[in-house]
């Protein structure tokens, strides 16, 4: 993963018009979730569906629209 981020950094520096596909990075998943704090930290490539599924287990939701 560190290699991939370094690779991405090189690409960003070299280009002024770059489309980033986070799926390519495989950079997804919940970093931290404490339902009692009403806060979730996720990696940038996490799908909205997965976040919603995780939150729903505790009758929680969040406001972003799909």
């Amino acid at each position, binding site marked *: 993963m560190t290699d991939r981020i370094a690779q991405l950094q090189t690409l960003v520096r070299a280009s002024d018009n770059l489309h980033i596909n986070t799926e390519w990075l495989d950079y997804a998943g919940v970093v*931290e979730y*404490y*339902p*009692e*704090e009403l806060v979730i930290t996720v990696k940038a490539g996490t799908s909205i569906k997965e976040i919603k599924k995780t939150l729903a287990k*505790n*009758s*929680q939701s969040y406001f972003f629209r799909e």
Partner: protein
Amino acid sequence: MSVVHQLLRALPKGIVITGSENTRAYECDGLSVYRQKPLAVVLPENIEQVKQVLQICKTNNTPVVTRGAGTGLSGGAMPLEKSIVLGLSKLNRVKSIDVKNRLAVLEPGVRNIAISEAVKEHGLYYAPDPSSQIACSIGGNVAENSGGVHCLKYGLTVHNVEALKVLTIDGEELVLSRKDDGLGLLALMNGSEGLLGIIIEITVKLTPMPQLAKVVMAAFDSVRDCANAVADIIKAGIIPAGLEMMDKFAIEAAEGFAQVGYPLDAEALLLCELDGTEAQVQAELDTVLKVLSGASTLKVSESEAERLDLWKGRKSAFPAVGRLSPDYYCMDGTIPRRYLADMLEKINELSKKYKLRVANVFHAGDGNLHPLILYDANVPGELEKTEEFGTDILKLSVDMGGTITGEHGVGVEKLNAMCHQFNSKELEIFHKIKQAFDPDSLLNPGKAVPELHRCAELGAMHVHNGKLPHPELERF
């Protein structure tokens, strides 16, 4: 001619208060251990007079300490030596009420409870409810970003203010609104503690009164079980209208004062209020009662009178504790809910170490602690010991991933604690923001943000990762 003479000459009779005896009433706010008399107190009756005061003070390079009702608990409205106090209590008109859009436009001196009273006939109220709501003013609420029991569900002051009119030190009128693009200046002004401008008009959001409210009282045999119940309620997807906790000492004090039937054999007590439509309240009640099934006593209010009775003990807890000790010091740290039990245990250990009693009665749902440290100011050294105890609690709050203030502000009280919360780069940014609004540092100077040398002298500069105290604690 001195600045006081200039003010006396420029303003009508009765607006400028001078003389040692007359200004004594303004020498402190609700944190009465810190006192300082100002040069004079000015109580303007209109915005034009506020502008005149600012102009005279600016010309004379005289600091201005703005004051609402003086109920603040961190010394934010305490005068500075050679400063003028600008009291806005006479600007107390409700300017307009917009029922359709649920908004009210207010002058800064309108009392918090007076907003709800003014809109009651429309089935509306103003949600943030600091304990001092019968006296405190909306301008002061904005300056301190005040909270209260209902803030868990309905938000702090910052979430309930739609627009502000602010005077800069130059007398320029800024209009800030939630609808503005760009920098979040409206949010910046909430909690700015009189350092950035004079708040002269506030547009607040009004909330429909709930059809029904019920309170659940749950008593526990252990503090840990009670604290965990707080986290479990939120974890179950319920945001109660209020979620308050009291420890044994606080229960005994409140019951002795208000006689509302709190169980005296309990180690900790939880009050959980649910509001909304009848169906909402019933659905939430079912879940909450399931979560609280481990309680030793469980009671649900069956009438409005019973609900108010159950709250009466909690609401009188501070004066009740005041009966048990010559003085008490109210702290205001906030921590993640999952550490509530650990924190209460540590406060207990500190209480033994410092040989000072503590009563805990607080907004548990927000993780906002209010430990009341009991002391006697007439015993030499006891206040200093109390302050040291308080600082330890605030440091613990930061170490647990929390903050040094939940709703009382920094003022003069928590300047040292700010050194623990923020590093020098962060503090420098705060100073730059202050400079952008007030380059000559005339608005409440020295409050809220500590000078860097103060932190250096304390040796309490922010400790970087890897060298944190209390390494046993899990962190964000």
